[in-house]
């Protein structure tokens, strides 16, 4: 999805021979609702990649801090393979398994066989699951995956069915 006009989105789809749906959001309503529009102060949508489970919930997300920051195809395939219960090593050498360049945007092809269910995106259902807005008592809270100060990452889903969680939004003072 981009904030390009319909003709621009169609031109890109044709130029690169993309076989998957290319969405455009010229009025920026969707990218604004997702908190991505003008996030970098450039009047565009911040580059963002979401992997969405078959139930519509988010498995993982990466929001770039600059226009060029995007996940590699390999890292996305590893996430999808994990969701599909596949060994990610079986994806080595498959089309679309490169680590950069144009292949990063071409997520269709043989490497995706068997994983269609994991990447089915239903735009009308997703905003409900992401639960944009302040969660109310009793709501399922949206998952996130964020870096930590120790250099690893943490997500709420790590604690599911294991521990209750105290989540604090705070300002650091050091």
């Amino acid at each position, binding site marked *: 999805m981009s904030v390009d006009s319909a003709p621009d989105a169609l031109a890109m789809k044709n130029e690169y021979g993309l076989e998957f749906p290319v969405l455009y959001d010229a009025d920026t309503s969707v990218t604004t609702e997702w908190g991505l529009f003008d996030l970098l102060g450039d009047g565009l949508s911040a580059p963002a990649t979401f992997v969405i489970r078959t139930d519509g919930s988010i498995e993982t997300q990466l929001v770039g*801090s600059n226009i060029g920051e995007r996940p590699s195809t390999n890292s996305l395939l590893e996430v999808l393979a994990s969701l599909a219960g596949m060994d990610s090593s079986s994806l080595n050498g498959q089309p679309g398994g490169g680590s950069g360049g144009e292949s990063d945007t071409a997520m269709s092809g043989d490497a995706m066989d068997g994983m269609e269910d994991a990447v089915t995106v239903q735009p009308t259902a997703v905003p409900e699951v992401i639960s944009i807005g302040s969660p109310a008592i*009793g709501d399922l809270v949206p998952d996130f995956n964020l870096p930590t100060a120790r250099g690893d990452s943490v997500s709420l*889903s790590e604690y599911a069915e294991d521990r209750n969680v105290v989540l*604090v939004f705070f300002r650091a003072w050091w």
Partner: protein
Amino acid sequence: MTTQDLGAASGSIDSVGVQFPLAYDVTKVVPRQWERFDNFKTELADAAVYVIDKDGRLVWQSLGDNYRHQVSATTVLKQLDSIGS
């Protein structure tokens, strides 16, 4: 979770003995999703404390009107006790 960049703060964290994950979100996406960003024109995540149960449901919250808002450990522990931690 904070919107400040803690990528170089591990030394400070070690010095204060923090045992739990200190996540940061310089993109502000998460606090925006939770409607807890810049509500008071500070360009920061607005302070908040949430208790989330094992099913991922919000069971208690304390929302501050600025970034200084804090909740006592006793209060949080009481909430955790109430859901059987």
